[in-house]
């Protein structure tokens, strides 16, 4: 049989269920691939070969006993290192958590295990998910398999790069302002941010609680939908988890036409600041939608222009509080201090040494924004903008079923290119942030390569709350059209041959 590395997760699951391959064989292939290429990619912070092989063997044994296997049983998955994994180090990309081993599993990790997925290890990320390039990881950057001189986006660059480098067929990401979708776009992979509350956050080390959402990363829309279905659904441990049934995402991902679907193109997420090659691929993809039965409309969301500013007040405010617990008292890194020190001195030294500069920047911003006398001016005002962004979506969804835009303004940028300019880095997320502010679901799907640099371009779909199925319906058709037009987008030959 051909290598399992390039197979879809769905195909792997079918082969394992049919007995054509064992789960151990599949896991071994991916673990060996990681060993082979991760020195160059650095997608993983921790690889759990023993645990993965044991989980795979358990799936094989269950199959041998004739037990019913779930739709993704035996398929390997990489988990972003911001999700708690019992018995496996979890660092959130930060020195302050180096060596910390959680005593519990995040709910989504429990669901992976229960569904028989095989956890390969933990993927690299910007520290505490703060960043758009994975360069803010305390453990070194991840390199984009399309061009190792470029970043794979962030914060979930590790998960996206692991998929693009065929180190894993599936991965979990988290998305606070685009951390699943932006890396997906620049690595030609698929990533979805579910409806806020659609997937449990229990065990997700919080960046900004009101924006964070766990979501699936995959190489195909159908694979992403299968993983979405495994992790989604109500969790009594997360008070913001919705009690609603999971939208029919798997069924939607098999769509081949868009009859009657009204698609809105957001006029504010285009034009100035967007790379011509990105717009060309995007326009081409949108133009194809009408042939599939959709109607395309231009839609204005006038407050999206303020979303980035509001986001960079709400996120640091919540983060400044969420990150207060990292103080060296109960877990993680503790700074060495002189005998006779006070506990305050220990906490201060721990935080000073344990946090990287981007984390410090956002804690300082958030602390300031929440300060007495400034709250109304900053945090309060940002929440008003958030409400206006939500209204923009509501108004738009009165006339169209989904909204589309380029996922990112540009293709993958060079390592170091934006490191010294935080604002330029933040602007990467201009198209992805509105969905987080409004809690609506969004997905990025590859639409080919930009003409000027040959790097991947992603199209973003946004849908109303709890209509995650629409993401997959449109995504499946866009994906099929792009493949028909350009073939499957794979990292160029010579970089990382499979």
């Amino acid at each position, binding site marked *: 049989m051909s290598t399992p590395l390039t197979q879809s997760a769905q195909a792997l699951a079918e082969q394992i269920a049919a007995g054509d391959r064992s789960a151990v064989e599949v896991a071994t292939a991916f673990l060996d691939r990681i060993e082979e290429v991760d020195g160059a990619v650095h997608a993983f912070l921790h690889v759990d070969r023993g645990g993965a092989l044991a989980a795979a063997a358990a799936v094989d044994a269950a199959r041998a006993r004739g037990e019913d296997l779930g739709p993704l049983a035996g398929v390997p998955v990489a988990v972003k290192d911001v*999700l*708690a994994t019992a018995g496996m180090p*979890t660092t*959130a990309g930060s020195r302050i*958590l180096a060596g*910390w081993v*959680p*005593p*519990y599993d*995040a709910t989504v990790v429990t669901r992976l295990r229960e569904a028989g997925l095989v956890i390969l290890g933990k993927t690299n990320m910007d520290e505490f998910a703060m960043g758009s390039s994975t360069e803010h990881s305390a453990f070194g950057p991840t390199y984009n398999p399309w061009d190792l001189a470029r970043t794979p986006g962030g914060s979930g660059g590790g998960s996206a790069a692991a998929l693009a480098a065929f180190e894993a067929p599936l991965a979990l990401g988290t998305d606070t302002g685009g951390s699943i979708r932006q890396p997906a776009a620049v690595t030609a992979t698929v990533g979805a941010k579910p409806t806020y509350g659609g997937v449990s*956050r*229990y*065990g*997700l*080390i*919080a960046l*900004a*609680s*009101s924006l964070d959402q766990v979501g699936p990363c995959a190489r195909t829309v159908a694979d992403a939908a299968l993983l979405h279905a495994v992790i989604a659904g109500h969790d*009594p*441990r*997360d*008070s*913001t988890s919705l009690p609603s049934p999971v939208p029919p995402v798997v069924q939607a991902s098999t769509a081949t036409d868009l009859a009657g679907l009204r698609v809105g193109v957001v006029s504010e997420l285009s034009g100035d600041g967007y790379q011509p090659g990105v717009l060309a691929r995007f326009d081409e993809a949108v133009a194809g939608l009408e042939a599939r039965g959709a109607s395309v409309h231009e839609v204005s969301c006038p407050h999206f222009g303020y979303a980035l500013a509001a986001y960079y007040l709400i996120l640091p*405010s*919540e983060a*400044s*509080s969420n990150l*207060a*617990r*990292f*103080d060296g*008292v*109960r*877990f993680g890194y503790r700074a060495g201090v002189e005998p006779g020190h*006070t*506990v*305050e001195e220990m*906490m201060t030294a721990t935080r000073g040494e344990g946090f990287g500069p981007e984390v410090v920047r956002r804690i300082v911003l958030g*602390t300031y924004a*929440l*300060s*007495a006398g400034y*709250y109304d001016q900053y*945090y309060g005002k940002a929440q008003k903008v958030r409400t206006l962004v939500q209204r923009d979506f509501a108004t738009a969804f009165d006339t169209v079923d989904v909204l589309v835009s380029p996922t990112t303004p540009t293709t993958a940028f060079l390592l170091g290119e934006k490191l010294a300019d935080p604002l330029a880095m933040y602007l990467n997320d201009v198209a992805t942030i509105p969905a987080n502010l409004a809690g609506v679901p969004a997905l990025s799907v590859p639409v080919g390569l930009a003409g000027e640099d040959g790097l991947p371009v992603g199209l973003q779909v946004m849908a109303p709350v709890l209509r995650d199925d629409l993401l997959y319906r449109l995504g499946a058709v866009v994906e099929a059209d792009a493949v028909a037009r350009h073939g499957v987008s794979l990292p160029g030959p010579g970089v990382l041959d499979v």
Partner: protein
Amino acid sequence: MSEPALVAFDDAVTSFDPVIGLEVHVELATASKMFCGCSTQFGGEPNSQTCPVCLGLPGSLPVVNAGAVEAAVRLGLALHCTIAASSTFARKNYFYPDMPKNFQTTQYDQPICVDGYLDVDVPVDGSVRRFRVEIERAHLEEDTGKSLHVGGATGRIHGADYSLVDYNRAGIPLLEIVTRPVEGAGALAPLVARQYVTELRAIVQAIGISDALMHQGSLRCDANVSLRATPTAALGTRTETKNINSLRSIERAVRYEICRQAAVLSGGGRIVQETRHWHEDTGLTTSGRTKEEAEDYRYFPEPDLAPLTPDAAWVASVGASLPELPQETRARVRQEWGLDDLELTQLTNAGVLDLVVATVAAGAPPAAARKWWLGELARLANEAGVEPDALGVAPHQVARVVALVDTGALTEALARQVVAGVLAGEGDPDEVVAARGLAVVNDDDALLAAVDEAVAAHPDVADKVRAGKVSAVGVIVGAVMKQTRGQANAARVRELALDRLGAADIE
């Protein structure tokens, strides 16, 4: 200390108008914590009642304890509060090692209970004056862990060699009840403060939401005090006294603070807005943190929790399930037992009303139940330094003792011995009677022998009685009682002694 000498209390309240405010924290007696399923049991091995949530481990999330919400609603309704149709949690951010997340999840601008009141009765010159204390709010929050500072002289964090933290208490649900400024109490302010907490505690206990034991910290009180020149002047700068751990200390601490502030103001100084610590041993407050040093808590809405939106019909059903409240109990027993205000206040002040009610419910006549709880049992509790309800004798046991006295099986003196036996852990009253062989001696032969012995021992007294000084027979009776260790029927001894000495009982 640079504090000026205190002004005498009477002078202080003549020169100034005191205004008080009280913040009471009640630890709710829910089985599990505010935001997780850990046990709230008091006194467990350190850190044995913890989980990722109450330890604030990365990734953990809170879930509101419905039992705590119900407890808040119960108290809110008992205090005539409005139950908010929607209330929210917020984060109060500050760093402290016994606070796992370095923020406290609490209710801030939208508390669950608002705008209530509590009427408190304060005895004044032979009658009772009623003060209405307005409740601004009651809100839910979580408790912190406990630090133990090892080494150093003070047991406080400064100077300690190292500190240990026990997170068993972290996350235990608290209900904080905050009054509006209480004005117009004048010289009665310290007493109003004490009576308010006494009454609040009684309600909390009656509705079963907490054991409300101040010495265990399940009820804590902070007292705000300010002075102003006249009752119509603007409110003065206030201080907040913490670390008050008994009802009596509330009165003392408020009284002290009034005298201290009067001294500062009379000396031309100004009051610093600050936290002060009450010292039970010295009866003083000392300066803690001033407002200038106070933290900016950077409150903001807790994004991990949805608003509480209790259903109106459910709130009504909670209200309907409330038991008789202490004030209602007092009104009832006042009428049924025919007590006046002062007699009632005596019972409540001594903290024995519920005990008396329970003793009566167990069959004792009200008068006897009152006499025991206000007399012998109050004395024993005082000696032991505990509240009467913690003395170790239950109302049904007291009722049994009363019954034994009523039937003549015990004398009062014997009954006291029985109570002592119960307190010594010898079992129920009947068991103590049996084990100690306590029974009234009615056997005339035995008593006569004892009388003869006493007469022989006190010939001069016997002569006086024979000469007609009947009252002197008490010495003989006393000697007999002493010899029989209180078990003799004293009335019969007297009869026998007078008969023996040929004197008529002319009393």
